[in-house]
């Protein structure tokens, strides 16, 4: 029941068990806030922060290696740049309709349903990728900078 590498560091047994039960639900809640951004409050930034929080929760409860095994540092850097390029590409695609940031296909779908409001859900997904990966990278870098005078680690 216990994985071998999850013992030894991190917090106590109660914290580890509760985290193992709830971290999937936190990730699902973040995706819910992200995808309903054009109907209810929330959207890209808030959803991205909650998604990042689920990974940070694993890091706080189980230690740094367990979190890095699920989302490694090169993968986080890739998602960060890819989210920004996707957002810029969606904005530039508006040039097809004639203007920057034009909300093309804004007339398909009825209001208050999930498939409405044009390009706004796609922009939300791009923003959440960038914000989530960025916040996770900030935490990893602040943890990696351990001030021991013998080994200075090179951060990304």
């Amino acid at each position, binding site marked *: 029941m216990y994985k071998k590498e999850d013992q030894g560091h991190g917090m106590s047994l109660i914290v580890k068990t509760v985290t193992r039960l709830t971290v999937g639900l936190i990730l699902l809640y973040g995706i819910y806030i992200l995808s309903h951004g054009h109907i*209810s*409050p929330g959207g890209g*930034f808030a959803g991205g922060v909650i998604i990042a929080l689920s990974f940070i929760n694993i890091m706080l409860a189980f230690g740094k290696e367990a979190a890095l095994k699920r989302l490694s540092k090169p993968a986080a850097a890739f998602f960060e740049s890819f989210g920004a390029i996707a957002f810029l590409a969606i904005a530039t695609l508006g040039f097809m309709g004639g203007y920057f940031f034009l909300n093309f296909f804004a007339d398909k779908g009825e*209001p*208050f349903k999930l498939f409405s409001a044009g390009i706004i859900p796609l922009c939300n997904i791009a923003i959440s990728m960038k*914000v989530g990966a960025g916040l996770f990278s*900030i935490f990893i*870098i*602040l943890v990696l*900078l351990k*001030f021991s005078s013998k080994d*200075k680690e090179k951060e990304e």
Partner: protein
Amino acid sequence: MSVYFLCLILFAVGMYGVLRKRNLIKIIIGIMIAEYAVNLFFVLVGYRMEGRSPIFSPGQDVFNMVDPLPQALVLTAIVIGLAVTALLAAIAIRIYEKYGTFDVTKIRKLHG
């Protein structure tokens, strides 16, 4: 009117932290408090008397809502504040590595 004055008093408390404290971390916390004060002031500018929250749901008329524009602007300002705080914290950790202390009066290699 008194609400706005309380926001400015909170800003003054944050500025006191930046100006008079000697520990680097306390200066960073002073900046965070001042930033909360400015964002709060901006949201309060959009308040209307007896207003409801500006969320549009099916079957409700649009009247008597508070102003939603400052809320969108403050969302952007909070993200900017997050980036600045993260950068300040990373630089403070590296300063501790190089100088060995957090005291501002001892980190004075540049002068003149």
